[in-house]
């Protein structure tokens, strides 16, 4: 009996692994076909101010191979690599994919040795862990400034180590079906928070006291999507004038927090216990509106493809905000300063290729749903076809970046919000505690806010 069971299990294992094996081989074949089809090499130099000259030989035409580390979508990176190696057949770039969270444990440790990757993907939230291993970009500052926005915030002692290829920020996503059912039209799209709260009430459905449909849901991400952004609408920065002391217990922050509490507890348009995450709840068709950052657009299209949704710009308090919202950049690659010189040279050239190549820029921005930092792409058709990017285009210069904030700012505010909603702590105490926590955690941080570099800084 037992033997039979084991035999059956073995058979199952074999069947499944066999299956996986088959999947793999077809996958590979497709990939090969793709590369063959894509082998058309551009003939002319391309780019705006930063030009990529195809005729310059890399590594004197000798074979060289480097590693590129990244997390996320292999296909996206592979396309850029294929384009590059089609021009320079002597270069081979090996893609190493990592799980997002653990990438940040492993990468800095690897860069500390001699065998780290020559080039790697950066996320600015890990700026401090990486900056000591980065080589400055081999491109004149003026050229970068001419082609890209937000470069100034990345200048360190006259050098630039990486810049943003795109800017991600928050917008309101709404369920079109619920919108119609509530008798709302395009006219009703709110411009101010007061209007937003009224619309949310109309979108809320209750059965007695029981919530059936939430008008608005910010569970699990209120810190990221409201607290760290709406303060700017009220004219308050996240950091004080010295650029180092946090400013999270400001009156503006208290006002924002109070509004969140009121929306749930006074307006009753949602509940802390209704939907574990606002984003999932929207996808499940349980909540009518959420404020989410750009990546949510892709999540909706892949995971929640049944939801018919629209996007509108984040409301403001008075129509004339100091800034609409905080944005965060998706960063270009970093070059490892400890890598051998010939590898670094290839890495530098690859970054240049990436920056000059509009197709790559558009592909990366669409993949992440970020607004292109490359100025010439601000009115690119493909970009504006994406509704989550289109709503940003009008006021994109009115979004502000505080710099690569240490993660404690986010986590401390998340804790504060949970304390307020779930543990019955009052707003003042919770935010004071968050302030204290952030100060403690940033004691040794070299972070300095770049809010003063915002185009409309006071």
């Amino acid at each position, binding site marked *: 009996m037992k033997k039979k069971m084991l035999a059956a299990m073995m058979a199952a294992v074999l069947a499944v692994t066999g299956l996986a094996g088959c999947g793999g081989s077809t996958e590979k074949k497709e990939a090969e076909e793709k590369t063959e089809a894509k082998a058309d090499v551009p003939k002319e130099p391309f780019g705006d101010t930063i030009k990529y000259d195809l005729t310059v030989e890399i590594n004197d035409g000798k074979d060289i191979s480097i590693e590129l580390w990244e997390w996320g979508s292999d296909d996206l990176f592979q396309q850029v690599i294929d384009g590059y190696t089609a021009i320079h057949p002597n270069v081979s770039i090996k893609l190493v994919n990592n799980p997002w969270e653990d990438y940040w444990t492993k990468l800095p440790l690897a860069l500390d040795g001699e065998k780290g990757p020559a080039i790697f993907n950066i996320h600015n939230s890990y700026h401090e*862990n990486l900056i000591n291993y980065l080589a400055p970009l081999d491109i004149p500052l003026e050229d970068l400034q001419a082609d890209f926005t937000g470069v100034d915030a990345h200048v360190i002692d006259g050098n630039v180590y990486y810049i943003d290829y795109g800017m991600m920020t928050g917008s309101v996503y709404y369920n079109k079906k619920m919108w119609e059912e509530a008798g709302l039209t395009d006219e009703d799209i709110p411009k101010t928070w007061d209007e937003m709260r009224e619309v949310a009430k109309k979108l809320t459905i209750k059965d007695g006291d029981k919530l059936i449909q939430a008008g608005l849901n910010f569970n699990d991400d209120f810190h990221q999507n409201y607290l760290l952004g709406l303060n700017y609408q009220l004219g308050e920065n996240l950091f004080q004038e010295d650029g180092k002391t946090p400013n999270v217990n400001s009156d503006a922050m208290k006002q924002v927090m109070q509004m969140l509490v009121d929306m749930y507890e006074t307006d009753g348009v949602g509940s802390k216990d209704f939907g574990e995450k606002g984003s999932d709840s929207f996808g499940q068709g349980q909540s009518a509106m959420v404020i989410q950052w750009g990546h949510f657009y892709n999540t909706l299209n892949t995971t929640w493809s049944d939801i018919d949704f629209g996007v509108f710009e984040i409301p403001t308090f008075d129509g004339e905000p100091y800034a609409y919202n905080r944005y965060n950049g998706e960063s270009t690659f970093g070059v490892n300063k400890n890598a051998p010189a010939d590898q670094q040279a290839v890495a530098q050239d690859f970054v240049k290729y990436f920056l000059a190549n509009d197709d790559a820029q558009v592909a990366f921005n669409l993949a992440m749903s970020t607004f292109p930092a490359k100025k010439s792409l601000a009115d690119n058709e493909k970009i504006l076809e994406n509704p989550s990017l289109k709503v940003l285009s009008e006021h994109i210069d009115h979004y502000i970046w505080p710099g690569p904030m240490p993660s404690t700012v986010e986590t401390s505010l998340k804790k504060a919000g949970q304390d307020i909603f779930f543990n019955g702590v009052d707003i003042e105490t919770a935010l004071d505690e968050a302030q204290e926590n952030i100060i403690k955690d940033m004691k040794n941080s070299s972070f300095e806010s770049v809010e003063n570099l915002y185009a409309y800084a006071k």
Partner: protein
Amino acid sequence: MFKKTHPLQSKSEIILRNIVVAAMVIFFSVFLIIPIGIAFAGSFHEWNPLSGTYNFLGLENYKDVFTSGLFGKSMLNTLIFSVVVIIFRVGLGLGIAYAIYSTLIKYKSFFRAVYYMPVVTPMVAVAFVWKFMYNPQIGTINQIFGLDVNWLMNPKTALIAVMLMTIWKDFGYAVVMYMAGLYSLPADALEAAKVDGANAWQTFRYITLPLLKPMTLFVVINSIIAYIQAYVQILIMTEGGPGTATYLASYIIYDEAFVKYNFGYASALSFVLFVITAVFSWLSFRVSGTEE
């Protein structure tokens, strides 16, 4: 005991002994003592391996550990977590093992296998599955029992929910351990009890249970070591929340070391935890009254 000492140690014994002892000493020195030494030295420093910071602080880190309210709270949580989970693990393990061992159950290896399944499944996957089951809207638990509880976000239930999952994952280990213990009970002792007319409960209480004491000790100490280091379930299910309601000591260490890269502080925390683990293990030895 002493009479068995060999009068003469053969040459091959000395060679084998020296090789083995030398290998052990070298191995544990290189892969444990030296790293521990480095970490211990680091616990007196402001140490961030990424930015290359390494500044002497004296006892500052330890002072921070003992004055940190969060550490105190998380130690209390760890204590509650460990005690409750260990009690259930031992209780369930013993009860179920005894049931399977009894002549009343026929398909013994079937049950043993079933209860052991959660033990061999990676914690990461298990924690995700349970997170789904605890979901207030779509979770199995609320749906089956018709409840409306936000298990992981209510400060009253969050730690309980995590403990419940841990008990589920780990009780099978105790079942198998106690099965082993029961199978190796001396038959004559049980036989004698039967002859003396002891009923089932008396046999269990006065014969079986005391004989299983070494196994209980083994399970308890292994559990203390494991639970004081537990953090994966917290990382995935609550991230310490709501607020700081489910912070466990090891989760702080993980957070300080691999999120904030405060290696000095994390090392100091680790050594404090190490001492606490050792004390509790020693205490359980004392309570059980076993020597060695």
